């Protein structure tokens, strides 16, 4: 069924994810050293707003018939799209994440990719899965109300 998205629902989802994000940052010694902690704190309003916007984008895609109405598709399609854009973005330019011309052998090369994936894509996947899951919660209630 189609996603119903009152603003309060989007806001609560964004709040939960942003708090989760801050907890993740401050529990991780690599990310909270020095001024990094302050940096992440200062961008958390932007994260909040970004998640609200993301929820609305998913709703629009869902209503326009571009996203299939199932959890897997609502999660995987945006996740892979964002991941791919990030991958292309960090690998072009003068300092690619996967350094050029290092003469790595195959297993080293793949290893570097997986290290990047675990560091960046795993938190992203968890967040997007949570958002998609939470987007589903309201829908069933709405559907039940509709049928009453």
């Amino acid at each position, binding site marked *: 069924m189609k996603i119903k998205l009152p603003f309060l629902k989007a806001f609560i989802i964004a709040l939960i994810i942003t708090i989760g994000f801050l907890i993740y940052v401050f529990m991780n010694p690599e990310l909270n050293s020095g001024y990094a902690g302050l940096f992440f704190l200062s961008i958390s309003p932007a994260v909040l707003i970004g998640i609200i916007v993301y929820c609305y984008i998913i709703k629009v895609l869902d209503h326009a018939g571009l996203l299939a109405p199932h959890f897997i598709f609502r999660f995987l399609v945006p996740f892979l799209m964002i991941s791919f854009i990030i991958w292309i973005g960090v*690998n072009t330019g003068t300092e690619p994440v996967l350094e050029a*011309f290092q003469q790595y052998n195959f297993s080293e090369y793949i290893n570097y990719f997986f290290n990047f994936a675990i560091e960046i894509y795993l938190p992203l996947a968890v967040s997007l899965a949570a958002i998609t899951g939470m987007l589903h919660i309201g829908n069933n209630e709405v559907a039940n109300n509709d049928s009453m």
Partner: protein
Amino acid sequence: MNIYQKNCLVILSLILGFVLSIAYGYSFRNFIDQPSFSAKDLEYKMITEGIKTERYSISKLFKNDYSVNLSRPYYFPQHKVIVFNGYRDKSEQSFYKIDSQGNLVDSITFSQDYSTIIFGDYILQNKAYSSWIIDGDTTKKNYIEVNAGTNWSEDKVENEFDRLKRSAEDVFYFKYESLWDYDDPRNESKIDKAVFLINGIWYALYGKNLYVDLNDLPDHTLPNLMPNDSSFDQPNSIAYVADFQKTNRVKENEWNGLAYINLLYKTDTIKIKAKLTQNEKPINNLGKYAAYNMGYFKPDGLPYAFIVQDDNYYIIKMKKQL
């Protein structure tokens, strides 16, 4: 095509995009395209392994690990010796003597005294001196103090200063700040100490505001002949990089790798391999290769020379031609 199929197509094509980009990166942007260096790898040797040919040999200068914190070599042509100044740990200062054949023949250790300096052919400290460089005498000698009690008038000090200076072969001085303890009254009165070398003995004179022109100090240190500018990239008469094998990239136009260096010593071309970084587009007069950790010292009149790499000294000795 229904929406599920369209979505599956998007998912599969994105996964394919990942796989293709990884394959592209591995095949086309991972390996460095350069000619084979296997022939050069045999011809050129790493200095750390030592090199032996019929005409010369290169080996570590100090068999044990003296090489930490060594100074540049000091060359004394009349005595045909080379002296190194080294710090093994902070409490001691050592000097090492290399004879005219390139062998480590002697060493002497002083407890740490920041006034220690090699001046002319002597080692001077503010309380004593040593003639070890000239005659191998390991005892510390005291200065003959012309005015041990510092109660001469300034005029008398000045006259004595001029008299000694006229008959001295060499003059040096220690300033009051490094001479006396902080609470010594002589520190407050700014008493300097001038020392004069007369007939192989050093005399000391104390006085206020003594001044010796130290601008033309005799300097026995050998200059580092390793070129550190763009002449290192082109053939020259001392040392240059003949070729470079890239190992991996540091950033755009900068590569880590092995440099194949031709070092010209007397009539031989010594072929050395060393790990260096190459900058393909250097700015101003900088060379392509940053060889700050390499040095080459050649004493004229002795049958050997020194190469330093990463603070380790190696000696190039000519073999006797039979």
